[in-house]
């Protein structure tokens, strides 16, 4: 009787739960072909398991109900049967094969990263995501935008939470609908994992290595996910928001971003000449500090020692201004202190440094301007907004090597190798590595690779026009001169023990690219 009342109580309270109907109980079907296949697989296995469960537990409950001693059951004496054992070894094997076949099919599709339309590099760091669009020069960080007072100290704070509490970010990752989007996923510090359930994509971000994943979404909308690998203190606070737009919407967004980039570059230049008042610096500094620094160093500036030191009264925040600026700009290698040079504008860095030097009784009185930051970090600062200029820089460097191009000129192998190495070290090394061993699978090895050992014309073609299968291999035809391409192809065919002996002259590149 007591038990029955208890059951009624539990059932009653479950149904009284107002949001019961809205709660998701099952895996999401998602918005891609793959995610629906994954969902179907999940349902298949679940039905099979339920079926097995009904049969096995059914037999068990039958014994419990009817073979009890209290009902006068006498124990039988059988305890062995090879036939039965073989039977219940064989049947599960058949069932398993039936499950393995569709699983294998889906898995092979999931792992096919070829022929993508858009490539985005996803770089995780504690506790934010950085997205970089290949060939577009667009890159930005994406961080949690839920205000801290909605989740911190909830015994005292009782802020109202929004619908997307902990699943909202300041800048969405925007991708086009019905296009194959490839993600190259890596990390700057610890291991994270990029997971969007609606795409059935979950891929670890490993520091020093690049993983691939892809998706092709067939419905515009906003899809939310989270970091799925324990990555330290704020692991629970680094969500992912992907906005899938129509093709026109995506093109429009790209234009907007380019405009924004131009404006930001202008503002950056302007900030170098502007002198900002202490009050303004402190206000901007505080907002920047709360958004970017407070997770570790805490709003109180007391940090969480020993991993995250206090700034209040610290040697860095009260010592040399330049030292302080470079620490914020470049970070400290091998610790949780990231470099903010790429994440913040010069003005923001100036403001946050000012704030840290004057808040919490640090009272150094220093007001740091954007120009001071530029001076302290020197040339490095000019690269802040220079990502779009990267390619032109490459050609500038290369142009110094060969000022004018004479396509009929015959070079010796040594000359080509020397020039080729220089070109390689500027234009190719980032992906294919100095050792020629690449970073597979996204960036294949050239050492002993089929392309550099195969047909010369194919090799030249892929350098000039890029790869159709692998979009991260961009076309260098417009970035390098024909002489440079001849040199780098020669270099690749002979370095690292490739030793094909091939010497490619500019005329050959000219002939090949004319086709």
């Amino acid at each position, binding site marked *: 009787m007591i038990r029955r009342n208890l059951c009624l109580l539990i059932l009653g309270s479950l149904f009284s739960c107002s949001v019961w109907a809205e709660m998701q109980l099952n895996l999401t079907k998602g918005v891609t072909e793959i995610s629906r296949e994954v969902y179907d697989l999940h349902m298949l296995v679940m039905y099979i398991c339920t079926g097995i469960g009904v049969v096995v*537990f059914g037999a068990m409950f039958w014994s*419990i109900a009817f073979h009890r*001693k*209290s009902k006068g059951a006498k124990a039988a004496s059988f305890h062995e049967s090879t036939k039965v054992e073989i039977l219940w070894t064989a049947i599960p094997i058949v069932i398993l094969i039936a499950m*393995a076949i569709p699983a294998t099919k889906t898995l092979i599709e999931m792992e096919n990263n070829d022929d993508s339309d858009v490539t985005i590099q996803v770089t995780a760091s504690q506790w934010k995501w950085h997205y970089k669009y290949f060939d577009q020069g667009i890159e930005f960080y994406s961080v949690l935008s839920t205000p801290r007072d909605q989740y911190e100290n909830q015994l005292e704070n009782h802020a109202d939470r929004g619908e997307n509490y902990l699943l909202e970010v300041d800048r969405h990752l925007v991708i086009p609908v019905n296009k194959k989007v490839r993600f190259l996923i890596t990390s700057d510090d610890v291991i994270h994992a990029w997971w969007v359930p609606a795409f059935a994509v979950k891929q670890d971000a490993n520091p020093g290595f690049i993983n691939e994943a892809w998706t092709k979404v067939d419905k515009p909308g906003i899809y939310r996910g989270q970091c799925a690998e324990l990555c330290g*203190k704020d692991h629970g606070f680094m969500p992912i928001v992907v906005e899938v737009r129509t093709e026109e919407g995506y093109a429009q967004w790209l234009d907007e971003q380019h405009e924004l980039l131009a404006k930001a570059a202008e503002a950056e230049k302007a900030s170098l000449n502007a002198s900002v008042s202490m009050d303004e610096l402190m206000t901007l500094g505080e907002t920047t500090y709360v958004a970017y620094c407070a997770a570790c160093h805490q709003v109180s500036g007391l940090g969480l020692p020993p991993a995250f030191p206090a700034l209040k009264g610290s040697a860095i925040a009260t010592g040399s201004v330049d030292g302080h600026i470079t620490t914020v700009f470049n970070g400290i290698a091998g610790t949780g202190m990231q470099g903010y040079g790429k994440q913040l504008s010069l003005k923001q860095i100036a403001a946050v440094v000012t704030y840290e030097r004057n808040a919490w009784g640090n009272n150094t009185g220093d007001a740091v301007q954007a120009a001071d930051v530029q001076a302290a970090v020197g040339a490095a600062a000019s690269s802040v907004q220079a990502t779009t200029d990267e390619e032109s820089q490459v050609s500038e460097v290369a142009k110094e090597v060969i000022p004018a191009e004479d396509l009929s000129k015959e070079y010796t192998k040594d000359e080509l190798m020397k020039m080729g190495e220089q070109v390689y070290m500027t234009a190719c090394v980032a992906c294919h590595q100095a050792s020629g061993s690449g970073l597979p699978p996204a960036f294949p090895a050239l050492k002993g690779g089929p392309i550099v050992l195969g047909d010369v014309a194919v090799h030249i073609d892929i350098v000039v026009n890029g790869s159709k299968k692998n979009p991260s291999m961009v076309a260098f035809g417009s970035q390098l001169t024909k002489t440079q391409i001849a040199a780098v192809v020669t270099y690749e065919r002979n370095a690292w023990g490739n030793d094909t002996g091939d010497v490619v002259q500019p005329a050959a590149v000219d002939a090949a690219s004319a086709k």
Partner: protein
Amino acid sequence: MTTENIATEQSDHDSHDEHHDHKMTGVKRWLYTTNHKDIGTLYLWFSFIMLLTGGALAMVIRAELFQPGLQIVEPDFFNQLTTVHGLIMVFGAIMPAFTGFANWMLPMMIGAPDMALPRMNNWSFWILPFAFGILLSSFFMESGAPNFGWTFYAPLSTTFSNGSTAFFVFAVHIMGISSIMGAINIVVTIMNLRAPGMTYMKMPLFVWTFFITAYLLIAVMPVLAGVVTMVLTDTYFGTSFFDAAGGGDPVMFQHIFWFFGHPEVYIMILPAFGIVSTIIPAFSRKKLFGYASMVYATSSIALLSFIVWAHHMFTTGMPLFGELFFMYCTMLIAVPTGVKVFNWVATMWRGSLTFETPMLFSIAFVILFTIGGFSGLMLAMTPVDFQYHDTYFVVAHFHYVLVTGSLFSIYAGAYYWLPKWTGHMYSDALSKWHFWCSLISVNLLFFPMHFLGLAGMPRRIPDYALQFADFNKWVSIGGFAFGLSQLIFLVVVIKCIRGGEKAAAKPWDGAEGLEWEVASPAPYHTFSTPPKID
């Protein structure tokens, strides 16, 4: 079980044996003991204390997750709680409990006077409290306790650790040494001290499962020792095993760790199979169905456990071939595991069942462990694992196999042999309360976690999005209820030690085995002359 009780019961029942042994009194008896029953008792008490400690940590976790927002702990401390909870439950509660069973029961089941290496036996227990002392002491240090998860993935545990890595590594080293010594002792005992006539295929299945488990331990504990040492040198001595900047690979950490970690999973479940395979026949009054196939199934599970480790790592970016290989091998494990479940059901089929508490826990084990097995099969499917991986679905899965699996089998075994250990019957009514409270609360605790995982809640997060709020509330209520229910067990055991109905040498009419041929409670020394087995 306490000193005084064994001593007094002993003099009541077995004064003859008492003359021969020079038991010390008080603390010294326990510090210096080389008696397998004393050491078994120490192991069992230690593991129960660790269960309550780890459980207390889990209840703080559940209190924080009771509703959205951060109420009682900071995210960093939350990570320390989950890490230490995992380490304590795996290395402090489940594994020592099984070693306790091995110490108490193996010699009596094979007709041996004691374990083969009694002095090592003493040492393998007594270093354990130090290991956990080191681990728990880190809570009180400036750096805090380990906060990188019980799986201590590099570089979170190396370059980015909070300074607790050294304590963690040395604690794990000591636990590992203890386990290896315990395992060597089990293997040597079983190989050398069986009573004349007890061939391998006549050994109780309980003995077989511990035999195989001990081999697994000897094989993989050194791997664990290796990987924690690499973590230590990466953190403090500038090596780069797991640091790409120095030519290392963080994913290699996971390969080495899970090469230990997956057999470890079976180290925690095979002995449970042994216990349940002893209890189900006893209360079905029917011999275990398919004894030989059970032995082969256990061995195949053990062998397969060495070639499935990377199914914990499907999202790390493995090549397709690797993913397929590990998916197929993992699915294959379902076959021998299925054979075991079918054999248990066939043992009950047309038996003459009664439902004493050990049997209740065993039946619950079979059903709930199988549910954990089903979710394991789902997790084995690589494409779907991408969705389940690192969510509460995984948390639900391994708690079903470890709590309603391993822990329930430990309770089943404890109730089954308590009369033999103490000489008294336990309170039947209280033990049934313990069972039903545990059964209901454990399902309220872990079943909704499946839904949370499927709906997309990642594991190891201190706060969550609003759509997960209702289930988390239920889970937390289940957690508190399950935690408190375990105190009933403490009461049952203390009452049973202090008195109660006298237990016969063989209190269960269907029980079989040499342990029931000695008096209850078991005399301090048993089988000084080996029994004859035909």
